[in-house]
């Protein structure tokens, strides 16, 4: 009997997986062709994408950038995009009619925007929070120009108000409510008696001036950014207050907040914009000019604050009641509890909704073209009013769409990063 026993003395070398199980083919099999239905859907989808891009890619890729007018474009090749209009008008699409030698101001403002939000978003920069506070004033001065002192005096008014409040509360031992009133009165006193002479004096002894730019010269994406980001920045705190007010036990506060939210939410934004541009002119005395951009920012802010309030209320409602009780049991005051226990959790839950509102608000800024502000969409029709570019539609809208997409996609990606970082699933 022969010995057929076999003992392998060393391990078989690893062989490559079967071709059908190699990485890319396996991935395709598992994800795209895992059954007849999925295979069919895959083929249909690929066909659909092909249909969409078949005409677009040659149209966009072969686009003409160097022609001087739509006529020249058509004479060169009528079947491709005439991006020359972007080349000729990109400054207007980005900055409106802002003087070109002053472009550094909006660009600097834009860069400083990121510097100013860093302390809010990144914990280790929180000690630079003071910059976030002075940024709005700085931005207004950089963008509109003129003397720095009127802007400065508004900050001074806030300092006066705070001073009045703390002196009344800490030195004179008044109640919080009464101290608040004193703070408010000191702001009013400041505006009526101190602000004027102060501005005149400092304009004389220390003139720090930038060229004044009228609101009429603002336009394009700059205008969208100003309205959008001011609205976002202002509507967030107002939204929080409204959400808290709606849950308040004080009937008057609750009624005002509910009334405000329901009224504003029940009205289309375009109506509010018309109020800003048309109706306010009738209410104000003739000759007073209340800047149209500021009017629009106010309207956009209250509109999105109402939505924001409901989003945050959703976050508040998701919190177990035990959180409120526990913070009360720890002896925290109402504001301490909100600041340390309730809001951090509620806001964390609300992040997707908040960013959703922000993105919606940012895109809604294109509505201002209806009240004759020249945002990118308004500029598109103004550009077509030049006979050189009369008849160009797609190229402009593709460019504008791309600008907005980059901004909105950026915001969305950032919110997802924030969600991952804060892990909102409570697990």
């Amino acid at each position: 009997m022969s010995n057929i026993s076999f003992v392998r003395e060393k391990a078989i070398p690893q062989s490559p997986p079967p071709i059908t199980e190699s990485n890319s083919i396996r991935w395709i099999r598992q994800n795209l062709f895992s059954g007849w239905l999925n295979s069919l859907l895959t083929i249909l989808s690929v066909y659909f994408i092909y249909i969409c891009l078949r005409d677009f890619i040659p149209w966009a890729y072969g686009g003409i950038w160097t022609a001087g007018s739509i006529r020249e474009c058509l004479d060169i090749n009528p079947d491709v995009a005439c991006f020359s209009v972007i080349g000729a008008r990109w400054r207007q699409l980005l900055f409106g009619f802002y003087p070109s030698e002053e472009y550094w101001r909006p660009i600097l403002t834009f860069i400083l925007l990121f510097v100013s939000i860093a302390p809010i978003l990144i914990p280790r920069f929180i000690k630079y929070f003071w910059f976030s506070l002075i940024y709005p004033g700085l931005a207004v001065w950089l963008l509109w120009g003129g003397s720095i002192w009127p802007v400065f005096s508004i900050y001074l008014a806030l300092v006066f108000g705070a001073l009045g409040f703390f002196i009344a509360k800490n030195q004179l031992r008044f109640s919080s409510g009464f101290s608040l009133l004193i703070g408010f009165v000191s702001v009013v006193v400041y505006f009526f008696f101190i602000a004027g002479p102060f501005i005149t004096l400092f304009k004389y002894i220390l003139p720090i001036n930038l060229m004044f730019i009228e609101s009429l010269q603002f336009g394009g994406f700059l205008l969208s950014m100003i309205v959008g980001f001011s609205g976002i920045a202002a509507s967030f705190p107002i939204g929080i207050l409204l959400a808290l007010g709606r849950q308040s036990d004080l009937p008057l506060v609750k009624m005002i907040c509910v009334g405000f939210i329901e009224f504003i939410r029940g009205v289309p934004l375009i109506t509010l914009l018309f109020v800003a541009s048309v109706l306010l002119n009738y209410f104000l005395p003739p000759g007073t000019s209340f800047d149209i951009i500021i009017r629009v920012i106010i309207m956009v802010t209250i509109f999105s604050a109402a939505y924001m309030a409901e989003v945050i209320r959703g976050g508040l409602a998701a919190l177990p009641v035990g959180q409120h009780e526990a913070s009360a049991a720890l002896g925290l005051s109402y504001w301490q509890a909100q600041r340390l226990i309730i809001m951090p959790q509620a806001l964390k839950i609300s992040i997707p909704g908040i960013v959703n509102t922000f993105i919606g608000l940012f895109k809604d800024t294109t509505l201002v073209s209806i009240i004759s502000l020249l945002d990118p969409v308004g500029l598109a029709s103004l550009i077509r009013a030049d006979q050189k570019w009369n008849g160009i539609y797609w190229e402009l809208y593709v460019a504008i769409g791309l600008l907005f997409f980059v901004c909105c996609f950026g915001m969305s990606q950032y919110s997802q990063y924030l969600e991952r970082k804060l892990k909102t699933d409570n697990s």
Partner: protein
Amino acid sequence: MKKSLFLSVAAIVGFTAGVAAAGTLDDTIARGHVKCGVSTGSPGFSGVDDSGKNVGFDVDYCRALAAAIFNDPMAVKFTPLSSSVRFTALASGEVDILARNTTWTYSRDTDLKQTFLGVTYYDGQGFMAKTSLGVSSTLELDGATICIQVGTTTELNLADYFKANGMTYEPLPTSDNAESKQQYLAGACDAYTTDASALHGTRINMENPDDHIVLPEIVSKEPLGPLVRHGDDQWADVGRWVLNALVIAEEKGITSANIDSFADSKDAEIHRLLGTGDDDMMAMMGMPKDGMYNAIKHVGNYGEIFERNLGATSGINIERGVNNSWTNGGILYSPPFR
């Protein structure tokens, strides 16, 4: 107490503002520029060039006005106004004159409390059709499919016109001029209709302009002109007579180039107009004596403005047609300057 303080401040602001609004011309002179409302974009009439400068037929009228008052055609602040806010912007004082291809109608003149200063451009509804259709007159469009913007007066005019001529048509509703054009080019309709001035501008920038024809018939009256608020006749006079001066200048052959050669003209009206004679006619309106001279010198006469913005040099190529001086077979006729 605080409340009454606020109220009194508000009252003071209102009072001073009320005083300041005494006369628009005086306010304008004190301010140093004309506040002119223009369209948010209408080819040939109002737009911006690549460098961001306001250009157009309506824009040039405001520049002439500014040149007459300040001897500076750039002393204008242009506010672009959409059609929905234009009248309130004028009424509230945001602008002092509206040169925004606005049709002069009875109700706008009376009910909306505005004063039209005259007609700068006689527009009207026209039709564009493909040359291959082989029509040369709107009257041959019986039974045609026509692209029409919904909710506009053009829609009603179209119905009236076809009914009056015993013809039928198939309407294809669109939302704006852009959509009309796309539908028309795609062959969804045989012809499309809107204001004739817009048709010309659109046609020139089509792929092959010669494949399309703007039919000669004009089926509605759209007299476009500048307007001001009711109740300030002095300001209205200034605006009206600057427009008239531009028309008279063309009639007399005065252009921005040759205006200085009229200094020793035999025509007394020219001297009255340009302020080169002894009479200071412009003082009657509270304007500088050489106001009209400056307007024509800086901006040109009516014909030059037309040619620059709507005529052959503009690329839009609109024929003068009725918008010509009465001496050249048009209907532009200014009252005498005396």
